[in-house]
């Protein structure tokens, strides 16, 4: 049952604010002492984070949480997933209820600069789009004047859609729900002519339609939505670990290291870059407060970025998203990670 959690979350922030100031730089120690990483994920984001009937979490964002656990705790399974709606997510991170927020959240200036959180990188380059029922015969976002638009509360989408319709001199009526589930049920029931959110979410929502072919996602992309993990401000060590976990996944793909071949590569590959990455030669982990095999474990236990993408979002999944701009920079995409050395 989707309930409202904003107020409890806000009260949690209030409680945290009333308590004594937290000491910076303690997240790594806390995670190690707990023996578990607490990771905030989406309540339901097909391809990003989704719990199956056995309660097993899968998704691109979920894999990222596991990668952090593999690097820090030597075990990708030592993660407690906390499903959060879009309104709870930052408050939950601010209040210290989670260690990492990995919940397809857009990196914006306001969020980075005024919420007490800091984004560690981008794990999916997204953009906001529109989905409409095919029978309305709308082929362009410019033909939506007067439409009723379903949108989720507490997302960047709410503002983008106002900007887009305003800039194009069109009118619309927003209907704002607080969970993705409420929106999809209202949209598929026909309450709104248009559902707007990030393209990847639209693709995921379409898989939940009674008949996916009745709906079409319009080609227009009206915004940049760089999605990525974020951490609390004021703990630079922890921030570095989270950021370089993401870079390690991307660099692993670039170096051709996969879950399947990483052991063999570790034994035989004489490339100094690969040896450094896998901790055979230098100890890069020491600089992060980790051990030398941190990156090896990420690849071994979770896989590289491309593997995670294919497993959760790729053509063989229900979401069926093309790799597109999320391909490596060497293959015409935008995924680029600084070198691990």
């Amino acid at each position: 049952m989707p309930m409202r959690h904003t107020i409890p979350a806000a009260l949690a922030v209030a409680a945290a604010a009333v308590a004594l100031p937290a000491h910076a730089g303690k997240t790594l120690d806390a995670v190690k002492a707990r023996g578990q990483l607490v990771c905030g994920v989406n309540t339901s984001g097909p391809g990003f984070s989704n719990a199956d009937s056995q309660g097993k979490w899968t998704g691109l964002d979920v894999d990222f949480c596991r990668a952090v656990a593999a690097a820090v705790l030597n075990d990708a399974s030592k993660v407690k997933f906390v499903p959060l709606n879009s309104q709870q997510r930052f408050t939950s991170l601010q209040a210290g209820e989670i260690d990492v927020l990995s919940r397809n959240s857009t990196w914006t200036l306001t969020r980075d600069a005024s919420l007490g959180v800091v984004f560690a990188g981008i794990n999916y380059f997204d953009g906001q789009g529109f989905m409409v029922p095919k029978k309305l015969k709308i082929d362009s976002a410019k033909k939506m004047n007067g439409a009723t638009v379903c949108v989720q509360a507490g997302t960047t989408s709410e503002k983008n859609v106002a900007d887009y319709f305003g800039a194009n001199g069109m009118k619309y009526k927003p209907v704002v729900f607080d969970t993705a589930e409420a929106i999809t049920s209202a949209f598929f029931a026909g309450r709104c002519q248009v559902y707007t959110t990030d393209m990847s979410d639209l693709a995921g929502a379409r898989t939940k339609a009674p008949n996916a072919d009745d709906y079409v996602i319009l080609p227009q992309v009206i915004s940049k939505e760089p999605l990525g993990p974020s951490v609390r401000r004021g703990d630079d060590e922890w921030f570095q670990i989270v950021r370089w976990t993401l870079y390690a996944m991307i660099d692993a793909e670039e170096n051709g290291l996969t879950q399947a071949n990483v052991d063999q590569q570790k034994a035989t590959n004489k490339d100094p870059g690969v040896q450094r990455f896998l901790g055979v030669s230098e100890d890069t982990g020491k600089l992060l407060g980790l051990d030398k095999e941190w990156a090896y474990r990420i690849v071994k236990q979770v896989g590289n970025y491309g593997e995670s993408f294919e497993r959760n979002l790729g053509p063989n999944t229900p979401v069926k998203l093309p790799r597109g701009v999320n391909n490596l920079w060497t293959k015409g995409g935008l995924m680029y990670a600084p070198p691990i050395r």
Partner: protein
Amino acid sequence: MGGDAAWRARQRAKRRRDWLIQGAGALVLLALAFLLARNVHENLGARQIKSGFDFLRDPAGFNIGELLFDYSSRDSYLRAFAVGMSNTLRVALAGIVLASVLGVGIGLLRLSRHPLVAGLCAAFVEVFRNVPLLIQLLAIYLLITELLPGSSDALSLEGFALLSKEGLQVAVPESLGPSLLAVLAAFAAGAALGYAAAKRWLEVGAGLVALAAGGAAAIVAFLLAGAVAGWSRPVLDGFLISGGASLTPEFLALWLGLSLFTAASIAEIVRAGALAVPEGQWHAALALGMTRRQAIAGAIFPQALRLAVPPLASQYMNLIKNSSLAVVIGYPDLVSIGNTSINQNGQALEVILIIMAVYLSLNLVVALVMSAVNARVTRAPR
């Protein structure tokens, strides 16, 4: 008289001591509040979370689906909150009226000797009082959005009213301002006439007669205004139905849900009030030759009202607070606007404070009005 002076001195000393103790208590509370506020401020600062109420003047940047007055995404957060508050007030007022009418009616009908009527009313009360409001709201909303046809083949009442997934649209007279004035004037005139007539020819029930007469006059005036000025009928225009007055599915679901849920409780309050009137009053009324209906209207209901007004006040307050469940069905009330604001600017504490202050003030107003009503109905019998 020395003893008297000593007694007065002791009283003065006691009063002074009481004041001192209470003053000290108040000071401690104030100091605590101050400490809390300062601690919150410092800690938010230390965590680099923005705080303060300056954001209210910034442009809100989001649109709102239901407006009682002009608002666009370029307007300030303050105006957005005003829109949210007006939406909360609208559904709360409409809910209080409908819940009262339904509740009183059903409460009295439950006393009927006719088993079918009494049984139906009992069933209504049990169903709507015992199912959580949240579930009722979701169910009503689901029914509206799933069962009603799309806007292109809306259910139509001769073009005067359309019912579809876009909600309920009703034709209204052109030149709405003067027409509304005419309707209000007709209501006042009808009510005054009805009241005077009832006072003259009837023993009891003048208030109800006045309401009914006013309502009838208002409806006649509405139809006349439409006939004279012409009707603005709802018509399908692209995706949207334009023209006429519109109630969205979200408003309808929330209004109905709140009204039915609260009506069930009000019915019980009215019934309890009626049953609490001593049996002797019944016998006395019937012995005086009143019919059963007259006895209810003239003897039982006025006395039941006295018992019912205080719990009625808390039902009204509950209704206002329950209207915050609007967020689950997408009605843009104060809490929904607050949620959106929190997520646009991250200033949760400030927004929650505003929301709490608004609900507190609304309910204090209800408490004031209801205690005035209570003072009136508990006057010594004429």
